[in-house]
């Protein structure tokens, strides 16, 4: 099972229209729409709802003034950090100042969404328009402020310094290096943009005093805690369920969204089921974006291209608020080093507020920016020295014998940045072979003879995956022989139901069909962190394996009594506990499950059968022995000391049209190492999807704000996500260096595909054009401008 391309168990329902996403639930529920700020920066003078009162089907209108104290205050800052000296979060509904277009101001509840939107259109908000701050460079140090009490708009400032082995600082090392370069890089805003937007549906049961919330979230357990806290309800009275989720890619790990607390609040207040389904326009202007950074790089290196010192100064655009802390720039600065041994490193970032949508992690979460920086640097060095780009990388790689390798920094989980395992030189060799690096010169020359321009590019990365603190798993075998697995983290299409079932099947010796998996449902599992940072397989996968091992041990113990054998002589095959080498002596796991529970009503055949095995229990001992529990179930947690580190190297061949400046990716090759593969088909799928998002980020997608803070392309018509016609064929090869850190030896795979793509494509376009490519994304129009500006 483990390691096989098992077909997905979620597919039959998703292929027949029987999936259940939030908006599929709550038929007849009241629906919510919001009046959102049309201005990037304004003070609310007055809100007049009188014209909306008569709208047919209107149920309620709420402004900030209607909110109870716990909802009237700013939402929590989820991940504080000492460097985030000026963290700011928004209120669920704006009180006095709005700081980006799309910020919610008024909430309307009506019989359906059409009517709610009608009412919204009639509500008049009187704004005093303030001058907005747009663009990180204009924001930094500006006297025009996003938040009155954040001087210079700087929310956070952090310097991390790793001296060389000899104790030299980066600046000194660069100063002393035989060669130095300095340049600037720009990465623009993009966004996760799942095809299903956010959504919340809340059901209040007045009889029971309980609340059930469905949210399209990547972390239902945390939403539950937030809702209980904000609504003042006892935690056990609140359940949050992430049903089928139509993609997340990071944006749905943010929580609680204003809507996630407002919709349940309205449901309780109105005593009705209330639902909000985000539409695409709302998703553009009121969820989250990511990526935008300006980077200033200085590097010193020797004649072989070995980096002796690297100094990077980053200006990070954080949008209007910092509810998710400064995780993104922290990851950029720590993961920037990739698979390389850098002599001395200094990184400094300033995270600045602007009057734009807030920034929270999007697949890759700061890594694509860091890799763009490092890999552009490697290409610059190669060009400066006139040596092959892969040779420069080769010269800097950490060698297989050097693991665990300590990069000397603190990672996003607050733990030391120590790489667990990998084989980077082999990975690079595999990649060169896969893409045909060494023979590309001939291909390029042949194309040139036909008037075509080809270029090849490469990019390498290391990705901290499976960050802690923990995940749990629960496994129960019921008397019908079925195995019920649950874990608290959520799924957004990664095939967790399949992968976790594979793990359970392997650990327990039970056929896959008998196993069912539930994720993201707090009724089943209350403790979890969430799905992000490529952590699901590592964290929940291992937790489920550990829980299965507990169940297995108990099953063997019980069966040993029945079969009069030593547990060490037993195995579980096909759902039966057998004595190894004695095929006749076996007992089904179903029977063991019945035996595990001393309740002996023969309510089903299995229970009736079990009575024949049930020996008389000792009269002077309790039926449930000390230290035992009834039932064949187990719960366990996995909590690693550190993250695992997956890695990969990508290469691409692009063609640029000499006349139209169109850029076409002809081939895309990936060598990937995420430790042991649980299901290679699913891992491939994750890589494909990541690469496609990467191609989007490199060539198509950008959030374009004008100087007034209006998002000019808040639609799929103008925010250009690639269709099938824009994505090249993707070739993959796998390397498996197991992680020594966890029982299953796995690392994570969820984000890998996207991380180096911008760097790879920049590298390839630069090779084709001979013009430095220092910004992403790159459109044909921009390439045309670069050509004209080139000497």
């Amino acid at each position, binding site marked *: 099972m483990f390691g096989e391309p098992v077909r997905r168990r979620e597919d039959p329902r998703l292929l027949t229209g029987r999936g259940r996403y939030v908006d599929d639930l709550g038929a007849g529920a009241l629906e919510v729409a919001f009046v959102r700020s049309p201005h990037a920066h304004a003070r609310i003078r007055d809100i007049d709802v009188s014209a909306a009162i008569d709208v047919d089907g209107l149920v309620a209108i709420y402004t900030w003034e209607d909110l109870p104290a716990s909802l009237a205050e700013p939402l929590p800052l989820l991940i504080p950090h000492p460097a985030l000296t000026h963290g700011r979060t928004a209120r669920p509904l704006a009180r006095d100042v709005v700081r980006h277009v799309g910020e919610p101001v008024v909430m309307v509840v009506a019989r359906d969404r*059409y009517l709610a939107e009608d009412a919204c259109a009639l509500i008049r908000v009187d704004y005093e328009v303030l001058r907005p701050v747009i663009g990180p460079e204009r924001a930094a140090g500006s006297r025009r402020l996003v938040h009155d009490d954040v001087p210079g708009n700087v929310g956070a400032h952090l310097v991390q310094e790793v001296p060389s082995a000899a104790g030299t600082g980066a600046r000194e090392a660069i100063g002393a290096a035989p060669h130095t370069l300095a340049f600037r890089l720009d990465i623009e805003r993009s966004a996760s943009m799942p095809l299903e937007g956010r959504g919340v549906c809340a059901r209040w049961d007045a009889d029971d005093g309980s609340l059930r919330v469905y949210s399209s979230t990547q972390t239902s357990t945390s939403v539950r805690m937030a809702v209980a806290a904000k609504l003042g309800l006892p935690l056990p009275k609140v359940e949050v369920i992430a049903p089928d989720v139509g993609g997340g890619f990071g944006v749905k790990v943010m929580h609680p969204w204003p809507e996630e607390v407002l919709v349940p609040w309205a449901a309780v207040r109105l005593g009705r089921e209330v639902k909000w389904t985000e539409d695409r326009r709302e998703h553009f202007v009121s969820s989250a974006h990511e990526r935008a950074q300006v980077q200033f790089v200085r590097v010193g290196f020797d004649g072989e291209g070995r980096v002796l010192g690297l100094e990077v100064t980053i200006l990070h655009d954080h949008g209007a608020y910092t509810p998710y802390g400064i995780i993104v720039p922290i990851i950029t600065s720590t993961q920037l080093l990739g698979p390389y041994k850098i002599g001395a490193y200094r990184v400094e970032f300033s995270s600045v507020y602007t009057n734009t949508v807030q920034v929270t992690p999007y697949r890759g979460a700061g890594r694509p920016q860091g890799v763009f920086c490092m890999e552009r640097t490697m290409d610059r060095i190669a060009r400066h020295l006139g040596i092959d780009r892969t040779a420069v990388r080769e010269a800097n790689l950490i060698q297989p014998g050097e693991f665990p390798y300590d990069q000397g920094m603190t990672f996003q989980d607050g733990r030391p940045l120590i790489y667990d395992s990998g084989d980077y030189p082999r990975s690079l060799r595999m990649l060169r072979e896969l893409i045909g690096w060494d023979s590309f010169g001939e291909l390029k020359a042949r194309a040139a003879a036909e008037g075509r321009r080809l270029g090849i590019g490469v990019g390498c990365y290391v990705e901290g995956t499976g960050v802690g603190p923990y995940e749990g798993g629960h496994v129960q075998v019921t008397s019908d022989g079925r195995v019920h697995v649950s874990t608290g983290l959520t799924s957004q299409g990664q095939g967790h139901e399949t992968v976790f079932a594979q793990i359970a099947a392997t650990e327990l010796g039970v056929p896959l069909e008998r196993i069912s998996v539930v994720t993201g449902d707090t009724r089943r599992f209350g403790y979890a962190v969430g799905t992000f940072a490529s952590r699901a397989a590592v964290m929940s996968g291992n937790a489920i394996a550990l829980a299965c091992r507990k169940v297995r041990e108990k099953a063997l113990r019980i069966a040993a009594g029945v079969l009069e054998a030593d547990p060490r002589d037993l195995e579980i095959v096909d759902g039966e506990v057998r004595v190894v080498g004695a095929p006749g002596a076996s007992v089904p796991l179903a029977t063991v499950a019945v035996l595990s529970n001393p309740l002996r009503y023969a309510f089903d055949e299995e229970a009736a059968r079990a009575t024949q095995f049930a020996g008389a229990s000792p009269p002077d001992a309790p039926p449930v022995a000390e230290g035992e529990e009834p039932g064949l179930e187990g719960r366990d947690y996995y909590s690693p000391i550190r993250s695992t580190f997956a890695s990969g190297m990508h290469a691409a061949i692009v063609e640029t049209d000499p006349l139209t400046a169109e850029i076409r990716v002809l081939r895309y090759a990936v060598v990937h190492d995420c430790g042991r593969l649980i299901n290679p088909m699913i891992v491939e799928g994750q890589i494909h999807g990541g690469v496609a998002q990467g191609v989007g980020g490199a060539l198509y997608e950008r959030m374009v704000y004008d100087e007034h803070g209006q998002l000019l392309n808040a639609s799929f018509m103008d925010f250009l996500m690639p269709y099938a016609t824009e994505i090249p064929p993707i070739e993959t090869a796998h390397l498996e260096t197991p992680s020594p850190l966890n029982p299953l030896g796995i690392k994570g795979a969820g984000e890998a595909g996207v991380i180096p793509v911008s760097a790879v494509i920049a590298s390839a376009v630069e090779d084709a054009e001979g013009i430095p490519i220092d910004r992403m994304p790159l459109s044909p129009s921009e390439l045309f401008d670069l050509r004209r500006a080139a000497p």
Partner: protein
Amino acid sequence: MKPPPFDYHSPRSVGEALEILAATGRDGKVLAGGQSLIPMLNMRLAAPGHVVDINRLTELAAVTVGPDGVRTGALARHAQVERSGPVAAAQPLLRRALRLVAHPAIRNRGTVVGSLVHADPAAELPAVLTLLGGSVRLARRGAVRDVPAARFFTGPLESAAEPDELAVSALFPALPPRSGTAFHEVARRHGDYALAGVAARVRLDDDLRVAAAEVVCVNAGPVPELVDVTGDCGHRAPGTADWGAAARAVRDRIDPEADIHASAAYRRHLAGVLAERALRDAATEAAGG
């Protein structure tokens, strides 16, 4: 993103439709394929008091091919026109252009006439109608008029159709002998509105030398405009005509705008590149046919 409320009309005959339009005036909007109107309604960028749905006027679905060209009724969908063999034989430029319009599912609903009335300067069909010197037939209660392309497009998203008028059909004239056409465009993604596009028509004389060479550019100004480059390419055989000079002339005579996807300079440059390609192809076709 839900449409605002409106009164819905579903006339069963053209006469009835015209009556309704006469009554609703400025407050009425014709609904054809809905592929431009409904997105605008969903975003509440339009809020007509009355929507007059012409989808039941099957009498307007006809596509007729005659010696004067191809006449498409107001309910002829892009896909229907694109797939028609007789249309392709009579006026191959229509199929070429339609394949560049959006995606198959959009083309299954969108209408050729709707696209003309919508008058988007980035759209392909207005350029085609202009290049071919076609016309749109407009009907109002008690009157019918044919408006030639040159006067039909009056501004970005503005046409000569008055609020009380229904565009009932459009005529795409057939090509004279020894003529050829081509359509080239560059879009950001396959199926997107073009960054720049060029429809070209070339006619040769009896000696197979270029007698007329014209182009219309997409996204090159507020309305599609015919650019005559006959004088620029020279009265020569297609193989020796100066298509480069023609392309330069196109570049000089258009007035594209910048937007978030492309600078004006790039659009101008592209129009030149595409004009040269389109003119060559059109000339080759003319010489072959």
